[in-house]
């Protein structure tokens, strides 16, 4: 037998029913089931079961997130070095990036898991893997400049109010990662709705001349009437290519639309993320942005005229639609309502981004809002579905 397995078998004793550490069994279970496949056997009449468990399900999302996370580390370092005029070679950039990003990720996991374990021990149920995803999603949608203690406060709120109050993963109706971020957004607006999102680790006086660090969105939203938003962004040094690939300042993991698409494809291929939500979100954003183009005149906000491709490559659109909107728990339950849900997210997000200058980006609020409406969409779709069936009641 595998020595590790033997070790765990020995370790298990004190956690058994009646043994002193019984209360902490969820802790042990989480560790054990993380390493080994389960020893539980079926009880109901369905004697064999599929190999897909929630662990596999959630780790698929983690796989899909990995490119974005790695690129996030690189890009954070890159932006930082760019701003302070340091060398741009790979190793040093990655080191700087890791130095900024890893603490955020670690705080997010450590604090989040602490709460998760606490509730599991109190309630006596097993640790749900959902948090593995939340714990990584959340740092990726934070700006690299965020103070670590705020990361901790945010994830505390996200886990407790976004999830545990309702009974834990599966029973929440809001996306916990977004709840956490939204809380930070309204609580510490200075750190998170600011326009400069480049973490600089050298002393301030080293900053290169002409560095403004304003995000593309901030520039676009701030452009005044007769000017052109696209030109304004271009003159600030942005181009479509960089926006799409992600070499721009922004939240840690969300800058790269390209890698979000890669992650999205992975989710679609494995069937873990709903392609209907993603397609709906895409179409919603496209149609809204075309609508804005159509109604753009010289007197409307210059953001209206912005080209579709720019709109889609900027900010957190791709990341939000791929990873946030597809969270199954807070989405509607029916596949067909997921399309409507996605579409409305796309439209709403675009509206908030373009029309409301107080919010630099719209996806977080759009997705949270639609999370709340998800049951309503389900209800309407369900009524239609019921009509199609031949009734079978007693």
């Amino acid at each position, binding site marked *: 037998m595998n020595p590790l397995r033997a070790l765990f078998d020995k370790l298990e004793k004190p956690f058994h029913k009646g043994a002193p550490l019984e209360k902490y069994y969820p802790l042990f279970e989480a560790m054990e089931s993380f390493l080994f496949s389960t020893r539980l056997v079926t009880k109901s009449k369905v004697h064999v079961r599929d190999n897909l468990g929630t662990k596999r399900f959630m780790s698929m999302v983690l796989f899909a997130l990995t490119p974005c996370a790695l690129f996030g580390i690189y890009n954070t370092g890159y932006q930082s070095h760019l701003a302070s005029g340091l060398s741009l070679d790979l190793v040093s950039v990655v080191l700087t990036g890791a130095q900024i990003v890893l603490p955020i990720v670690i705080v997010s996991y450590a604090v989040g898991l602490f709460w998760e374990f606490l509730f599991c021990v109190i309630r006596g149920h097993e640790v749900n893997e959902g948090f593995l995803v939340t714990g990584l999603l959340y740092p990726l949608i934070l700006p690299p400049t965020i*103070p670590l203690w705020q990361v901790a406060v945010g994830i505390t709120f996200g886990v407790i109010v976004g999830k545990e109050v309702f009974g834990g993963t599966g029973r929440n109706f809001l996306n916990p990662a977004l709840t956490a971020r939204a809380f930070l957004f*309204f*609580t510490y607006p200075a*750190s998170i709705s600011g326009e400069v999102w480049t973490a600089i680790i050298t002393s301030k006086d080293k900053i290169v001349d002409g560095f403004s660090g304003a995000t593309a969105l901030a520039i676009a939203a701030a452009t005044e009437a007769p000017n052109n938003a696209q030109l304004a962004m271009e003159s600030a040094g942005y181009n479509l290519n960089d926006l799409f690939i992600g070499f721009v300042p922004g939240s840690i993991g969300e800058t790269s639309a390209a890698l979000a698409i890669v992650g999205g494809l992975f989710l679609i291929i494995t069937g873990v993320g709903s392609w209907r939500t993603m397609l709906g979100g895409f179409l919603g954003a496209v149609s809204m942005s075309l609508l804005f183009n159509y109604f753009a005149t010289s007197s409307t906000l210059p953001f209206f005229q912005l080209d579709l491709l720019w709109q889609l490559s900027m900010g957190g659109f791709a990341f939000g639609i791929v990873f946030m909107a597809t969270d199954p728990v807070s989405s509607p339950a029916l596949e067909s309502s997921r399309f409507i849900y996605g579409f409305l997210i796309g439209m709403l997000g675009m509206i908030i981004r373009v029309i409301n200058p107080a919010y630099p980006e719209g996806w977080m609020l759009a997705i949270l809002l639609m999370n709340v409406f998800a049951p309503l969409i389900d209800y309407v779709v369900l009524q239609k579905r019921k009509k199609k069936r031949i009734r079978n009641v007693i």
Partner: protein
Amino acid sequence: MKLTKTKAYKTFMAPIKDANPISVAVLGICSALAVTTQVMPAIVMVLAMTFVLTFSNVSISLLRKIIPKNIRIIVELVVIASLVILADQFLKAFLFDVSKQLSVFVGLIITNCIIMGRAEAFALANGPWLSMWDGIGNGLGYGYILIVVAIFREFLGAGSLLGFKLIPQSFYDMGYQDMGIMLLAPGVFIVIGLLVWLENILKSKKA
């Protein structure tokens, strides 16, 4: 008879413990949203509220036999309104600053559902002695939630209590920031929500 066994005591404690107007009946949320950004106005509001509640309960209870059924709401309103004006004038005279902070909310005590509710549900059916205790009890039951919420909001949102800065400047220098959301209306919902959660847990533990 022991104090805790008397009817008056029970009437007094019920709204504080089991039938709290805010956390159980979810009444009077509107004023709870408005006046709890700081502790001081919350306290004043609680006092005004308890005053109005107690006296309206007592007077309506005294009048309960002679109020004709079909115009009782109007009579109740007249009583409450006079008491509210009294309270408002008093605050304006002696606590002008706070009364300015509270602005219309003292006047709006008239519409506070708790007062009307107690008059209808309790004072009309019970004698003045019990009604008085019911009024005080409800006022304090409302009050303690309000003050707890206000403590959270003022401390987390502004770093102070009763206007005294509690969080030292050195914290701010180290990067601490106040929680902006606590000063906004959603903060109240979050805090009250968490309080209700806590209360339900405690209750279910006891049961």
